[in-house]
């Protein structure tokens, strides 16, 4: 069965919430959001998810214009968001602009903070999220501008950077899980929490990943597995949650999941 790279990413992304138990699954930007939807639908029905505004919903809300009313099961206004995240009951997958070897990410500025070359969104809730609950990251373009050498320009979410902690010890709430890009899946289980490639998307080599990364990557022992193709069941769920095919607009030219098929 053919599938797009976006679908592969969603399929791989869904797995990050599989064993989380009853937490809020937040996916920001369309692919992570679809991943969270699939995770709830197929792997972990205890997950809490929202309508993107301020309600918890029983079933994932499809992207874009809606043909059916949402099924509300709870209230999730912003004040509640912080109450919940401060007790750690959340796993978010977000899409930062930069990440460094410590897993520190940036969505605030490119360049100097006082007078940036590019002003972005601002740190939003990244600092609080990063030290309170599990976090995973998505990068649509795996390159050295996104996976940077040195430190990110402004550290919005904390990472495993001993220089930034008293006695080098990160807070117990810091829990970085996965990074999913257009090339591969990574985790933080390399030596000293180093970022480690755990699977390569079909047709991608480790060297290509390393060449497009600003810092040295660890790798799982032995041959690096290939990111598993989405099952028919997963593809059907993805289609159900994305009836307007917004997923086809996220990655440039909507490449196939197996680049050798292109």
């Amino acid at each position, binding site marked *: 069965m053919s599938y797009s790279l976006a679908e592969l990413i969603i399929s791989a992304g869904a797995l990050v919430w599989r064993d989380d138990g*009853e*937490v*809020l699954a937040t996916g920001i930007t369309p692919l992570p959001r679809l991943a969270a939807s699939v995770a709830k*639908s*197929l*792997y*972990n*029905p*205890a997950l*809490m998810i929202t309508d993107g505004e*301020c*309600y*918890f919903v*029983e079933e994932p809300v499809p992207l874009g214009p809606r043909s059916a009313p*949402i*099924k*509300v*099961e*709870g*209230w*999730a*206004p912003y004040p*509640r968001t912080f*109450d*919940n995240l*401060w*007790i*750690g*009951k959340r796993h978010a997958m977000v899409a930062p602009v930069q990440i460094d070897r410590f897993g520190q990410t940036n969505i605030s500025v490119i360049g100097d903070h006082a007078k940036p070359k590019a002003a972005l969104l601002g740190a939003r809730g990244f600092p609080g999220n990063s030290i309170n609950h599990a976090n995973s990251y998505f990068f649509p373009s795996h390159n050295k501008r996104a996976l940077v050498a040195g430190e990110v320009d402004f550290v919005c979410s904390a990472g495993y950077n001993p220089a930034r902690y008293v006695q080098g010890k990160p807070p117990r*709430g810091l829990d970085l899980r996965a990074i999913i890009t257009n090339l591969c899946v990574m985790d933080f289980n390399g030596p000293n929490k180093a970022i480690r490639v755990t699977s390569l998307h079909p047709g991608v080599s480790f060297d290509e990943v390393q060449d497009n990364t600003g810092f040295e990557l660890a790798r799982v022992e032995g041959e690096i597995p290939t990111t598993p193709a989405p*099952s028919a*069941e997963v593809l059907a769920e993805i289609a159900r949650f994305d009836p307007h095919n917004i997923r086809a607009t996220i990655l440039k030219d909507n490449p196939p999941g197996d680049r050798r098929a292109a």
Partner: protein
Amino acid sequence: MSKPLPLNKVTSLDGLVGQIKSGMTIGIGGWATRRKPMALVRALLRSDVKDLTVFAYGGPDIGMLAAAGKIKKLIFAFVSMDHIPIEPHFKNARQAGLPVMELDEGMAQWMLRAAGMRLPFLPTRVGIGTSIADNPMFKRVTSPFEDGEELIAAPALKLDAALLHVHRSDEKGNVLTLSPDTFFDDLMARAADKTLITAEQIVSTAELDLARNARYHPFERAIVTAVAEAPFGAHPTSAAPDYELDMAHLKAYAASAESPEVWASYRTKYVDVSPEDYLAAVGGADAIRKSPKAIY
């Protein structure tokens, strides 16, 4: 691949009690004579659980646990039945030397908030200049800013379990509390490792009508451990708007503090019985529904 089973947190009163172990620190929701999880408290009295450290904005919940010897240490700012200002069983226990930690009402919820945020403490001025602050459990913290003010560091009031009574719940632990006052049930739930809930009714998620009732939804289900249906489970306290407090019963209960014999007889009749027999003994559902609105 078969889909995993949906969440179901429904259990019995005894199922809830089974989550409470001797020596735990528990918090009990509601306030004085309002929305107390009394059916659960009675079930706790029937169990072997003992040596509890208990925090509550206390009413007959505390009185009963004290009378039954379940409390090792009481954390409180008051214990009252509103119209009977001093809870008589609490008074007996206190005068017999029950160990206590006395707090200010507002400070107590602030200490719950600290626990619910996983912070070791929160600063406050509350307690300064009073005997409350003489308790060595409180430390001091100095503002690192220009003001340099010395404040009380109030330690987090962490709970092993929070016992709450709500109006409606679904099987997943999405709940509604419909009362005029919310009290601090939400902070207790966040401060607790386990949140154990009795509900007047367990209904479908759709029946909760949460799109319309969002503001009656006190906390997300991820912090709810288990739920048991307990109709009239707050009696003799109120679960307004479902029903009001039962003043006649509260007076009978208060009178049971007169002697161990009277308490034993109250206990035989109202505690060591099933919820169904309790309901019959207090006059039945219709009688409870007819209780007049309490005036404070």
